[in-house]
Every structure is written in C-alpha cells, then in structure tokens.
C-alpha cells in the first residue's frame, strides 16, 4: 500500500507551525508587485488568519458551515488592518467603506492588480487579493492537513498561493530561485515525516531487516521496531529520493529552458481601451484651423468628389467637450475593437463605390487615424508600421479608426474603403430618423432645447427639422475663429452663443450646437470632425489645417448616417460694431470681466466638472454597492428566511386546518417540532404518549413547574394531556369539536411560551434549526417504506 494513500491520523496541532513556515516563500512572492511591505503584510495576515481558523476548526470540531462563517467574518473584519488600512479608523477599525471595499475587491482586485501599473501599494484595494487568497489557501491547507489528515494534498494550496503571487506579480522581475529549491526540499521532508507518522499511527510500521526478523520469531507486538536501523534506512531512502527529485527539478528551475525573465499574467493581458483617456479631437479644432492653417495635414492619393476624410466621431457630451462614449454592455456596436488589417468584420452591405487611396498624415494630435467613407482595410507602411498596425482599433458604428501605437503625428497607410453615394433631400424626405440608441448627453446647455423647438416649430418631417436647424445656424450665425469667438464648446460657451446678439463661432461650436439641438429632440445625431475641401475631383489632394471641418451626422432609417453642415460660410463674419465696445476701454481688455476665456479656462473647468461628475459617479457607485451588498446579504440570508417561512407556513397550515381533528393533532405536532428544533431527540417510532412522557421528562428538569390536568380521572401534565387530545383526534371515532381543537392550540401555545427559555442565540438556533424539517422528511420516507 502506498503510504501517501493512507488517509490517516491528522498530524499533530504543532504542524500548523510547519505549514506556516512552508507558506513563507509563497507569502514573499506577493511582495514585489506591491512594494513597501504592503503585499507582505496582506499575504502574511491572510495566511495567519487562515491557519488560525483551521486550528480553531480542529480544536472546536466545527462543521463546514461554521468554518465558512468564521472565515467570512474573519475576512471582513481583518481586511481593514491587513489590506485596506487607508479606509480604516486609526489603522485597524474597519469602517463602512472598508466593508464595501472588502466585498467589491474580493472580485475586482484580481482584475485591478493586473491592470494597474506597479507598485500597487499606491492604490487602495488590490492588496485584498493576497489577503483573501492567503486566507483561503491557508485555511484549505490547514483543514486538509489538520482535519482530513492528507498532508500531501495539504501542500497544494501553498503552491497555488505561491503561483498566484508569481502570476499576478511584476513583469520583468527576476526573483532569486533558491527559495523554490529550499521550499521543495522542505516539502519533501514534511511529506516524508507525515507519511511515516501516519504509518506508525495506523500501526503499519514497515518492518525490514532485523526488526522484522525479530518480530517474526517472537511474534512480539511491541512498537520498538522503530529502531536505529530503521531510522538509518529511512534517512538513506529520503536522501536518495531527494537526490532524484533534485536532479529532475534543478534543470527545469535553473534553466535548460532558461526562460528569459518571467512571463506573468500582466504580460498577457491588455487593459481595455478607455476612450476617455484621449482628449476630444474637437478641442484641438482651433489649433488645426489657425496654427496649422497652411500645413498639409492629410495627403490623399485620390480623393473622390464629395468624399470627406473622417478623423473622429463624437457622440457624448458632458457639458465640457464632445467625446466618444465608451462601449457599454448594451451597445457593443459602438466600441472600438482591435482590428488588425481588416476594419470591417463583414463586407459592406450598402451601396457605394470602392476606392483605394494612400494616405499620409502629419501634425495630427491624438490617436485618430483619418479614414474615408466606410473603411474596409487599412495597412500601415513605414518603420513603425508593425506597432501601428497591431494597435489599430476600428469602430464600425462610427466608421472611424484609431491606433494606440506610436503615431507621433505622422503615418502612411493604404486604405481600401467604400464611399457611399451622397443622399439627396428627395431620398431622405420620406424617411424617419433611426431610434436614438446611445445617449450620453449628460448636460444640455441652457436654451438649447427651447431654441430647437422654436426653430423646428413648423417642420413636418424629421428631415425638415434637421434642415431647419442646419439652415437656422448657417443662416443666422456668423463665422469667426478669431478673438471674437472663443474656442471651446462648453455648455456656458454654447449658452452664451445662443443668448448673444450675434451667434458667433466656428465649426466646433456650430456642429456641437446642432448635434445638441437635434439630440434634444431625440434625433440621433453625432459630431464628426474631419477634412474636406471644395473642388475635389478624385485626384490627389493635400488637405491643410484650413480644410479641417466639423459637421453633424444624422441617422436615417434604411440609409444610415447623413452629413449636415451647420457652419455658416467663412465670409459671413460678425459685424464689427460688436467688437468696437470691446476695443474702447483698453485697460478692460487686459482684465476682461469674464474669467480667462482662453484654453487656460478649460482645464480649470474640467476639474470642476470632473469633481462634480466624480461625486455623481461616486453616489451612483455607492448605490450600486449598497444594492450589491444588500443583494449579497439577501442571497446569503435567503436560505434562513426560507426556513423561517416554511416553518411559519407549516404552523399556519396546522392551526388553520378546516378539520378540527387535523387541527387538534396538528397542535401536538407543533409541540413536537418545537421540542425537536430545541434539540430534543424524539424518535419516529415513539407514539404520542411515549413522546409526551419523554418531553415531560426533559422539560421537568429544565422548567421544574408543570401544571397538571385531570383527564379521565388521571392527573396528567399538559404535554401528555395534549398528546391525549391528539390521539383522540387521530385514532378515535369521536367527533372533535372546533372548541377542543382551539383549546389544544392554546395548550400548545402555552407550552411553547413556557419552554421558550434561553438566550437569543438559543432562540435563533431553534428558529433556524432544520431538525424538525428533516424529521418530517424522514417521517414521510419511513411511512412510505413502512407501508408495504
């Protein structure tokens, strides 16, 4: 028999210390990614807590539920000092926030630790991973070793803990390898000792050599065979085994493979693309149209007539900038997904002319890759082609692309695309706009919706409305990209633009305003930024900063997105009279009444907004956490609530039985179940009388006082009298009156009240005890079995 398969006597309690020693290298593996001892503290505390729970479980012989409960309680209470010190009072008293973090981070920390940049000590939360993991692994190791008596299996959680530490560790970090060797050695010694101990414990000491011979001759049963001879052989065998194992593992550890550094999970995962990381391209619109006015930004080898180069598509507005909404679970369509070469997942279904163009860009900021029409394939050229190509993301919904590779403003690539034909108003007039799907307009500037309503008051169709807005803006507005018109499309900027005597702005403001106006009427609209120029004829074209435009696209059913230009012609400049008063009081110019109205203003307000936003988000998250924790609690409590409910239902059914005989015998069943839940063993084969006397005997001791009832000349305790009534109800041909049933229930209630003594814990245990329910199940099964 293999010694390892012996499910033997669990090792002694002090072997917890050995387990703790074996955990040391595994704990150490969690440190590098955190730094400053944070990982060490969390992992060490977790291991200590887990082992402590395991020891308690063994000493107090806890059952599975209790161990789980203790472990969960330990986890929640200990997570403050061990892993979430920032959230605690005085470094150890857990707060509400600590518990929130403990619950949420039990799930999130696995992802968080991988995706944030080490050292992770700077963040609150990820340390929950080593703490939780250490607790669970140590608890498992402890339970398997100390209670199941499987020390070999018990070392597995230690290894798992270490491996998790390595896998979630820092990339590019090459730790010393000797601890692994030492650990393996220690593990082997520990296994050897354990199996030997268990063999002796099981009386299966292996007898060899002289000891065996003596035993065979004398037939002695004395345990003195653990002689020096044996020890020597075992030692020799152990050393040999170690030598063999080392010979096998050393090359792997030290490198026939000689792996370069370590590959950790961090290297394999990539953080999801967060579009909020990138500044909105619209905010650099003024930069392109003024600073880079005459610079060639995009050179296209062949630009079809009417085609527009698209730089970015923006559909969300937070009161500060138009940006891209991140994909949510409900709208996977609008997400930027890694594309490779092929941007379109399936061939373009709509009509359009295929085209190929080589595009060169320079001076662009941000990750945006200019495209044309519906881009099909896109292939980078040049030195950094690989990195650009690898990090190319495409958004089919927006028909736009971006790359997180090193763009540095210039790139060259070949683009295959389909350019849909332009739509005439005739084609669009009968069509309805699509249903507004994504809407991330969180702030609508004052007056926008009123303006939209008044402008479109007389429009009949959706197209009319869109055209009305477009015409209103381009007709009534004035174009300016000088000091008269501030760059920015913040909510206050747009509100002032509407309120002002003259509407002044450039593409940035007009496109944003139109999109917001349309969206306020639930027309799906988005802002597109890109380049186009007049007089395109399909030949090569150099597009300058001057050709940068922003326009609005509206989605029509069947047709898709159609472009509209709300920007007034560039020669429609504002009347100078408005600029006159501005120039008169010179000193005032230096300190305009408006606070800094240049881009300087932007970051300031962004922070303001984002603080508000964060608060709003925080509130949202708080609620989410409350719901999550509440739901979790409810889920945890639901079995208990279920038990209470079933019991209540049972009592109700018995008490309200229409047949008085059933109600009367139910009162007795109620008393029995009450006693059973309180821990009295009432065997199924006892009759009511026998059970009653049994209960009476038990209760006499505890309660001492018992009223007596005179039933047919006999003096009986209440329980027995109640059993009598139930017996009459069950077995006699007498008619039970409802009054008798009622009084039986009164007795039963009195009995329960009388014997409800005990503290809150005892009461709770009784209320939640499954004994009576299990007994009912046994009874049903026994009745089925017992009845041939």
């Amino acid at each position: 028999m293999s010694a390892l398969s012996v499910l033997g006597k669990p090792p002694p309690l002090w072997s917890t210390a050995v387990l703790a020693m074996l955990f040391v290298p595994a704990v150490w593996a969690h440190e590098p990614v955190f730094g400053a001892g944070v990982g060490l503290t969390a992992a060490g505390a977790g291991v200590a807590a887990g082992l402590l729970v395991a020891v308690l479980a063994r000493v107090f012989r806890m059952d599975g539920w209790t161990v789980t409960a203790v472990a969960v309680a330990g986890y929640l209470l200990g997570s403050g000092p061990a892993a979430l010190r920032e959230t605690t009072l005085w470094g150890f008293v857990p707060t509400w926030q600590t518990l929130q973090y403990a619950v949420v981070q039990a799930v999130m920390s696995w992802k968080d630790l991988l995706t944030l940049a080490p050292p992770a000590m700077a963040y609150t939360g990820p340390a929950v991973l080593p703490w939780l993991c250490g607790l669970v692994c140590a608890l498992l190791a402890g339970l398997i070793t100390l209670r199941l008596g499987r020390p070999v299996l018990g070392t597995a959680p230690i290894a798992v803990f270490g491996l998790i530490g390595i896998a979630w560790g820092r990339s590019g970090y090459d730790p010393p390898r000797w601890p692994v060797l030492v650990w393996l050695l220690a593990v082997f010694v520990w296994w050897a000792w354990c199996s030997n101990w268990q063999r002796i414990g099981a009386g299966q000491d292996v007898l060899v050599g002289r000891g065996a011979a003596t035993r065979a001759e004398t037939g002695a049963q004395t345990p003195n065979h653990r002689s020096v001879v044996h020890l020597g052989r075992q030692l020799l065998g152990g050393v040999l085994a170690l030598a063999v194992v080392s010979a096998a593992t050393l090359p792997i550890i030290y490198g026939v493979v000689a792996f370069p550094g370590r590959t950790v999970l961090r290297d394999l995962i990539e953080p999801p693309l967060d579009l909020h990381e990138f500044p909105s391209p619209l905010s650099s619109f003024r930069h392109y149209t003024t600073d880079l006015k005459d610079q060639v930004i995009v050179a296209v080898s062949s630009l079809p007539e009417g085609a527009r180069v698209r730089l970015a598509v923006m559909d969300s507005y937070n009161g500060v900038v138009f940006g891209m909404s991140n994909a949510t679970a409900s709208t996977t369509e609008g997400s930027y997904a890694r594309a490779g070469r092929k941007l379109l997942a399936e061939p373009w279904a709509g009509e359009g002319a295929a085209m190929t163009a080589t595009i060169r860009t320079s001076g662009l900021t941000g990750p945006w890759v200019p495209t044309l029409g519906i881009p099909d394939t896109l292939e980078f050229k040049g030195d950094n082609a690989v990195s650009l190509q690898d990090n190319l993301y495409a958004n089919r919904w927006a028909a736009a692309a971006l790359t997180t590779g090193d763009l540095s403003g210039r790139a060259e690539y070949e683009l295959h695309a389909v350019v849909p034909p332009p739509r005439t108003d005739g084609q669009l007039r009968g069509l309805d706009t699509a249903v507004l799907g994504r809407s991330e307009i969180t702030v609508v500037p004052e007056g926008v919706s009123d303006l939209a309503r008044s402008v479109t008051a007389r429009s009949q169709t959706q197209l009319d409305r869109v055209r009305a807005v477009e015409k209103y803006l381009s007709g009534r507005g004035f174009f300016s990209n000088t000091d008269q018109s501030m760059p920015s499309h913040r909510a206050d900027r747009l509100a002032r633009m509407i309120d002002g005597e003259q509407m002044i702005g450039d593409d940035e403001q007009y496109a944003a305003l139109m999109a917001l106006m349309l969206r306020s009427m639930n027309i799906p609209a988005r802002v597109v930024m890109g380049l186009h120029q007049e007089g395109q004829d399909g030949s090569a074209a150099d597009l300058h900063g001057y050709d940068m435009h922003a326009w609005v696209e509206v989605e029509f059913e069947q047709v898709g997105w159609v472009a509209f230009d709300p920007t007034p012609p560039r020669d429609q400049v504002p009347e100078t009279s408005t600029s006159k008063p501005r120039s008169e009081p010179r000193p005032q110019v230096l300190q305009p009444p408006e606070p800094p109205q240049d881009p300087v203003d932007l970051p300031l307000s962004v922070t303001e907004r984002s603080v508000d936003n964060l608060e709003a988000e925080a509130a949202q998250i708080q609620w989410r956490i409350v719901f999550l924790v509440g739901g979790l609690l409810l889920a945890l409590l639901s079995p208990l609530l279920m038990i209470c409910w079933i019991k209540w239902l049972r009592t109700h059914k018995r008490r309200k039985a229409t047949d008085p005989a059933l109600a009367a015998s139910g009162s007795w069943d109620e008393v029995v179940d009450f006693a059973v839940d309180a821990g009295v063993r009432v065997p199924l084969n006892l009759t009511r009388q026998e059970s009653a006397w049994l209960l009476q005997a038990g209760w006499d001791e505890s309660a001492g006082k018992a009223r007596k009832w005179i039933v047919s000349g006999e003096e009986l305790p209440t329980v027995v009298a109640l059993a009598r009534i139930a017996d009459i109800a069950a077995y006699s041909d007498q008619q039970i009156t409802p009054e008798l049933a009622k009084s039986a229930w009164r007795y039963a209630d009195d009995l329960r009240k009388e014997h409800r003594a005990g503290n809150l814990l005892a009461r709770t245990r009784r209320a939640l005890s499954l004994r009576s329910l299990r007994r009912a199940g046994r009874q049903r099964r026994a009745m089925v079995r017992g009845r041939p």
Partner: protein
Amino acid sequence: MPFSSAEATLFAGRFSELANNMSIALLDKMHPIRLALTTLFAGGHLLLEDAPGTGKTALARALAKTIAGTHSRIQFTPDMLPSDITGVNMYDQKQRDWVFHPGPIFAEIVLADEINRASPKTQSALLEVMGEGQVTVDGVTRRVRQPFMVIATQNSIEQAGTYPLPEAQLDRFLMKTSLGYPDYEVMIDVLAGAAAPDRSELLHGVMTTAEAAGVARTVGMNYVDRAVLGYVAALAEATRTDDTVSLGVSTRGAIGMVRCARVWAAAQGRGFVLPDDVKELAGPVWEHRIVIDPDAAFSGADAAAVITRALSNVPTPVLKR
C-alpha cells in the same frame, strides 16, 4: 352497536375489579393478570412458559373463581390419550345406553399443565378444541362452555422426553407470557400467607360467566382506526421481512393483535385503540409466533429482538385519513 367511551369507562372499572380480585391470589402479578383477562375477553388462549411453582395453576384457578366459572386441570403426560381430554362414551348398564362422560375440557377455564409432555396426537386434540370451541366424540359434536379459555403451560427447563409444540399450533395461542418469580418483599408476603393452602379460595366471583361472555362480545367492537390497523399491518410485515426470521407474524397473529388491542384499550377506559396498545401487546401476542432462522438463532437472535426492531423501524402513524 359500536362501543362507546362511556361503555369503555364502565368496562375499565369492571376489568380493574377483576384484576384486583385476582391479585389477592397472585400477589404483585398485575401485568400477567391483565394479560390473562385480556386474553379471556378477546376469546383467546394463553400460553404460560414458566418454571414449575411460579403460580401458573393459581392464575388459572383465580381466573376461574373470579368469573364464577368452573376450572379444570389436565396434567399432560406422554401416555395420555385424546379421550382423556375430551371425555368418552361409556355403556351404562342401568340405562342400557351409551352415556357421555365429559372430559376436563368441559370447563370455562382449563389449565393444560406441561402441554409439551403429551404426545402430538393428544396435543392436537386439545388444540382442535381450542380452535373450534367444540368437541366431537363418536360422531356427536358438543360445544364447550362459554367463555372458554385454555391456559397451557410449558416447562422451559426440562426438555428431555417432551414434544415441543409445533409453530402452527403455537400460533393458536393468542398470547404467551410468563409469571416469573416474585420480588423479595412480595416473596415474604407470599410466605406469610402460606398457611392458606389455596389462596384462590379467598376469592369471590366478581362476574358471572354469562356476563363475561356478553362483555367479551361488546368489547370486541371497540373502535380501531385504519391508521392503527395500518400500523399493525406494517409491524407484521416488518417481522416477516426481518433478516433473522424464517417465519414472521401470520395474518392470524395480526388479527389476534387487533382483538387484544381492542380489549386492552377498553380496559384503560378508552373507546379507541392507540398505537401504544399495539406496542405494549406486541411482545405477548407475537413473540411465540415468530420462528427464528436457525442460523440466526445460533448466533443469538431471538424473537424479542425482532419485535423490538420492528417497533423501532416502523414509524407510528401520525396522520389521520
């Protein structure tokens, strides 16, 4: 006419009177006395298995005295013939006719002492009377008296030269019990009263035989719920399926149980039978009917254990209807 609970109370009173009366003759033997009376009212026969000198005859005499009936005793021996029990036709010279001389069986209470000493032929003759309640001699059938009860005894010690009753015949006894030796204190009381050679002479008739027969008829109508009947059936089934048993409780055994339980319940003033009654009577009514598998018997199994097992395995009925 069903047996009402008022009648049950009345019956219980009479029953206690009888039992108390009998216990004047048999000190501190209330349980066997009640069992014997139950057997009487259930219309069955009692088998006593006891050592000699434990009061078997006293019980029979006391019972006979109490119901003001006749009592006879047959001491069984190996050379006994059936006619020694039933009686014979003898030619009367004066009357010039055959005259029937009734045997000892023509009494209300018949004590068949050491029944296992008689030859099987004689045993059978007795058992036939027990079963049929009638005697046929030379083609003439005569009914025995009512109530009629045989109290047979078996000596459990001496087994040499005996003919143990076969299982089929044991089944005809409604109950088997034993009196056993009295306690120390009771023994002293017994010895103190030893001056009177027969204590049953002190008894008076509490009930007439006619009344006893009438009561036996009404008490047999005591109510038994189907749940309790089901319990009896389940218990009987459980004895049959027990691993150590080669022959379990027969249908006759189950019927006997219900008969006894009716009386037993009424004797406690109850107009209905409880599972408790069945439990109390399971030993006396069924133990002698169970035949233990020889292999199991060799390893120490006995009928009492089978019944205990059945009682602990079969749940008591709890639900009505």
